[in-house]
């Protein structure tokens, strides 16, 4: 294809660098400097998508971030991104793009039937139409979502890298149009640390859309270049192009996304694809510009109908004719500027329909002087053309602009440039919690009072003349630098000078009359992206939705990915006009981040895969891996789950491990247990206050099990604490809870009991811990512990002592979580593997078997030992667990004690820990299964509780389960039913929770 709409000269494109690209399977050529939109227009392509609801053909409306129509799927396979605005995609060689929301093709789209059936699809149609029968909603939803689609998610994982960075500056300037450049120059000359962020690839903003402006006597593009050079030469100024400030948060925290390599087409090299800037600015200057408004008239959405300023941008910046024969429809001066620039670019401007009765202003004077045909007091009242506008009808309006006076005149054209005024880009200002106000003269919302250290300058502040923008921007930059604490230097200079030209005067007619009865005229679209028409808004009002927030949600106007950049004020205007209210009384909708959509990838940054979360491994981890262990995640730890031998299932492996720990010797890596070193003269008192039981009398060299509650009386952790010296204890916590428990203890020490002399240190990583358990454990330890006395006199159950194990200095605690004689051997972490290997070697003759967490769970469940987080869920007290024996009656206070006598806590029907035995010993209840009483009838059936732990116990030769059951301790021997999701009901009997060796003889011999 030739670029038959490309002008022979002008623009900011490089005609020497021709770039090939593919759109919807067809190959085209563009130039370096093009966007995808400008390159398509250069090839005469306007039709770029189908609309969201009616599947109407849609074309490129704008030349910027506000684009609601030309939403593009860019790229293929894994490296692709949906819903990108063609107007912002920089062209690169080999670019591949597709239109969206059409099937099977853009030219022939089956969904376009929706347009014919639009009377059946009024606003809120899916609330009304698809309500019955309720069970069919899933089917409806599938079809609706399929036909009302945006783009497609990428296939496969994202191959690109993303980065994040933090930054601080004195002055952040958002937007590098004339106001922003002037602000950056003023702040930079004052010596401030400045970041200038511009979403475009070029500095200059709206100056590139214009034609012939001069600043300080030089052509605008020369001034831009001089400003760029000056800013780049300042050491404290950072210019970020292709960088979108998408969100303005508290305390002047502004988030930006820099598109580092997107414009290179996936050739990332060492650079990331995009970079997230988390920026804290002392002062912010918003110079975010303004967005032109469409006019709302019948048939205003055909391809070829564009914003007037976008037409100027395509002509002046990209050297592209948006068409060969143009009609302009305007209510202000901007349309006349577009007419002049298009005429200068050789486009036949057939007429300017101006809503104003008597157009006058700097631009309309020039169109008159140029001999262009201006039809005052007139409107475009209808359009024709299936995939491109080909004819418009222009009619005179009555003096108050409510009716078309005659059938009107038909004019052929292939582009219609429209201007309905301007909306300052208030998004960031509004996100900063600044309040906007309506300026009836400008016909738009403008910033009111600031809520943060921020100021707006230029057209985003309702100032539209170039000279005024430069002056205001310059002043804003200077003031911002001063407010940031930078002493003004002498090199400030003066604000740049230029001519002024405004878009005013204007005439506000929010909905243009069509001259046809309602329903007969073509649709007049307000929100192009979400296919909301003026009639939809009026229907919502008729149906009783009066608040603009309700109208917005009911019609979905302004709720597309463009957040209503082109539609919100028109919608508010039409609501106000219909209700006979003033716009400020109707209100303004809220702007939320992001300004334009941001990829998930940039939020994830490098925090993916192995870098998502730290992985903690014990010093013995490599041995476990070599032994073929299966691992489970416990917090951030990798713990061996079980150690399958060749050909073994998990079930077989766990059974073998469980039996070994009861019959010979098992060995487990317990390094992950949290360890907190407690020192200080008040340590015993501190333990008294944080555990439920008494600690004062615990002797040096002895250990004690403790339950920790929160102030509400609920169990939050348990573990064994050893007294190592007079004022020295070592607390162990559950593996996943080490950090929260330390934080809990610190909080009380610092905020409630700062008078206590207690010091807490996390020593989890300093020690490796190996547990050996089983009838042969003592014999095995004796073989490697040299002359240490392991007799029950010297080291009884719950005793702790120091010694050497396999030559390694070790602390040995005789404590048990299995119900067997067990020793927990702590050595410096660096010696953990050596200890483990020594025990494995020495244990060979005792048939030692390594066991994992699953076997540990079975072993402790056989003994009825709880696991915090499995039997407990934050709503369980020690009394519920039947652990009253560990709750001191003598202590006057400990954390949670008072709560244990609250009425709710002592109710007899609280859920209590019990054991369950299934009628069929082979049947293993699923954990989480609910339990009910009697025959399972029709719902609702009162739930008595649920299964918390359930295993096959090889030592008992049957299944066992623990459960939390309402009033469970009074139900011993009672038969309960567990109805399962698969329809079966399992009968079981309530028992005590201890299934094996309730007397504890295995521990205490």
């Amino acid at each position: 294809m030739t670029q038959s709409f490309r002008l022979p000269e002008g623009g900011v494109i490089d005609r020497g660098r021709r770039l090939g690209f593919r759109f919807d399977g067809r190959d085209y050529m563009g130039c370096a400097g093009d966007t995808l939109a400008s390159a398509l227009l250069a090839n005469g392509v306007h039709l770029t998508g189908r609309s969201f609801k009616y599947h109407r053909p849609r074309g490129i409306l704008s030349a910027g971030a506000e684009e609601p129509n030309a939403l593009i799927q860019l790229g293929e396979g894994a490296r692709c991104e949906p819903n990108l605005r063609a107007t912002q995609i920089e062209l690169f060689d080999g670019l591949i793009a597709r239109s969206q929301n059409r099937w099977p093709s853009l030219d022939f789209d089956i969904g376009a039937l929706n347009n014919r059936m639009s009377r059946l699809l009024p606003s809120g149609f899916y609330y009304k139409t698809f309500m019955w029968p309720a069970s069919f909603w899933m089917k409806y939803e599938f079809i609706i979502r399929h036909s009302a689609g945006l783009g497609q998610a990428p296939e496969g994982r994202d191959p690109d890298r993303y980065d994040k960075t933090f930054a601080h500056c004195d002055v952040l300037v958002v937007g590098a149009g004339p106001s922003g450049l002037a602000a950056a120059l003023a702040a930079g000359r004052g010596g401030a640390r400045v970041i200038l962020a511009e979403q475009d690839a070029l500095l200059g903003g709206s100056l590139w859309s214009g034609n012939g402006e001069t600043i300080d006597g030089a052509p605008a593009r020369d001034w831009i270049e001089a400003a760029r050079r000056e800013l780049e030469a300042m050491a404290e100024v950072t210019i970020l192009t292709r960088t979108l400030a998408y969100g303005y948060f508290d305390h002047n925290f502004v988030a930006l996304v820099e598109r580092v390599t997107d414009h290179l087409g996936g050739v990332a090299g060492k650079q990331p694809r995009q970079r997230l800037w988390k920026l804290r600015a002392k002062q912010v200057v918003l110079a975010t510009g303004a967005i032109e408004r469409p006019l709302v008239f019948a048939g205003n959405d055909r391809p070829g109908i564009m914003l007037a300023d976008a037409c100027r941008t395509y002509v002046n910046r990209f050297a592209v004719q948006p068409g060969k024969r143009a009609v302009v429809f305007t209510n202000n001066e901007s349309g006349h500027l577009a007419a002049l620039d298009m005429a200068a670019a050789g486009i036949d401007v057939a007429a300017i329909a101006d809503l104003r009765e008597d157009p006058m202003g700097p631009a309309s004077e020039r169109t008159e002087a140029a001999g262009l045909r201006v039809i005052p007091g007139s409107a475009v009242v209808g359009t024709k053309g299936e995939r491109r506008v080909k004819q418009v009808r222009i009619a005179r309006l009555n003096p108050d602009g409510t009716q078309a006076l005659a059938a009107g005149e038909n004019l052929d054209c292939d582009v219609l440039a429209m201007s309905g005024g301007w909306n300052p880009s208030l998004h960031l200002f509004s996100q900063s919690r600044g309040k906007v106000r309506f300026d009836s003269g400008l016909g738009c919302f403008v910033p009111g009072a600031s809520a943060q250290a921020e100021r707006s300058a230029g057209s985003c502040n309702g100032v539209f003349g170039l000279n005024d923008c430069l002056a205001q921007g310059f002043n804003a930059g200077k003031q911002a630098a001063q407010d940031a604490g930078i002493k003004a230097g002498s090199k400030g200079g003066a604000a740049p000078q230029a001519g002024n030209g405004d878009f005013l005067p204007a005439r506000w007619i929010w909905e243009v009359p069509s001259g046809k009865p309602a329903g007969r005229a073509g649709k007049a679209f307000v929100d192009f992206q979400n296919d909301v028409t003026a009639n939809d808004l009026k229907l919502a009002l008729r149906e009783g939705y009066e608040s603009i927030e309700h109208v917005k949600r009911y019609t979905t106007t302004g709720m597309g990915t463009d957040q209503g950049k082109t539609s919100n004020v028109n919608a508010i205007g039409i609501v106000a006009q219909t209700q006979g209210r003033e716009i400020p009384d109707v209100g303004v909708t809220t702007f939320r981040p992001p300004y334009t959509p941001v990829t998930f990838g940039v939020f994830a940054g490098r925090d993916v895969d192995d870098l998502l979360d730290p992985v903690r491994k014990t010093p013995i981890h490599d041995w476990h891996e070599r032994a073929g262990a299966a691992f489970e995640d416990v917090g951030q730890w990798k713990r061996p789950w079980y150690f399958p031998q060749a050909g073994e299932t998990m079930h077989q492996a766990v059974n073998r491990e469980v039996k070994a720990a009861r019959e010979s010797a098992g060995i487990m890596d317990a390094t992950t247990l949290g360890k907190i070193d407690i020192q200080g003269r008040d340590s015993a008192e501190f333990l008294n206050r944080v555990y439920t039981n008494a600690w004062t009398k615990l002797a040096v060299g002895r250990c004690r099990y403790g339950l920790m509650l929160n102030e509400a009386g609920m169990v939050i952790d348990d573990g064994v604490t050893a007294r190592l010296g007079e004022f020295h204890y070592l607390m162990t916590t559950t593996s996943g809870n080490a950090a929260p428990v330390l934080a809990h203890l610190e909080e009380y020490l610092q905020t409630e009991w700062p008078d206590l002399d207690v010091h807490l240190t996390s020593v989890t990583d300093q020690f490796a811990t190996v547990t050996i358990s089983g009838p042969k454990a003592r014999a095995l330890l004796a073989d490697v512990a040299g002359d240490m006395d392991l007799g029950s006199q010297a080291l009884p159950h719950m005793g702790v002592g120091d010694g050497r194990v396999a030559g390694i200095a070790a602390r040995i605690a005789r404590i048990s979580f299995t119900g067997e004689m067990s020793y927990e051997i702590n050595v410096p972490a660096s010696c953990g593997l050596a200890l483990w290997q020594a025990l494995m070697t020495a244990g060979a003759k005792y048939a030692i078997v390594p066991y994992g967490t699953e076997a540990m769970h079975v072993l402790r469940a056989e003994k009825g030992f709880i696991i915090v987080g499995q039997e407990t869920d934050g709503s369980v007290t020690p009394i519920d667990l039947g652990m009253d024996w560990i709750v001191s009656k003598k202590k006057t206070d400990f954390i949670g004690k008072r709560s244990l006598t609250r009425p709710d806590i002592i109710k007899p029907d609280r859920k209590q820990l019990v054991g369950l035995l299934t009628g069929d010993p082979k049947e293993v209840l699923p954990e989480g299964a609910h339990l009910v009483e009697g025959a399972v009838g029709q719902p609702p059936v009162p739930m008595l509780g649920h299964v918390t732990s359930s295993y096959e116990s090889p030592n008992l030769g049957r299944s066992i389960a623990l459960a939390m059951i309402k009033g469970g301790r009074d139900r011993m021997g009672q038969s309960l039913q567990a109805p399962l999701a698969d329809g079966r009901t399992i009968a079981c009997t309530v028992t005590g929770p201890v299934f094996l060796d309730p007397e504890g003889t295995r521990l205490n011999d």
Partner: protein
Amino acid sequence: MLVIPCPHCGPRCEIEFSYGGQAHIARPQDPAAADDATWADYVFMRDNTKGVFLERWVHSHGCRQWFNVARHTVTYEILASYETGAAPPNLDLESQA
């Protein structure tokens, strides 16, 4: 995202801190003497202030110290920070609210 002035480390980004709820909630000296309502009030009930709120923060990823902050819950302005145990600064709370 707030900038929180840690009394020990100076201004730091909010991500370094954890929130601890309302400040100056004294744990009853003698919990056993507290009736159920008093105790429930201490454990469960907190103010939901519109205006200046005295609240606790801990510099979890810094000095790990608890301290108090006076923050306006509407504007999010932080008017003061001070060490645990210290009296709140003399702020005209009514006029701020």
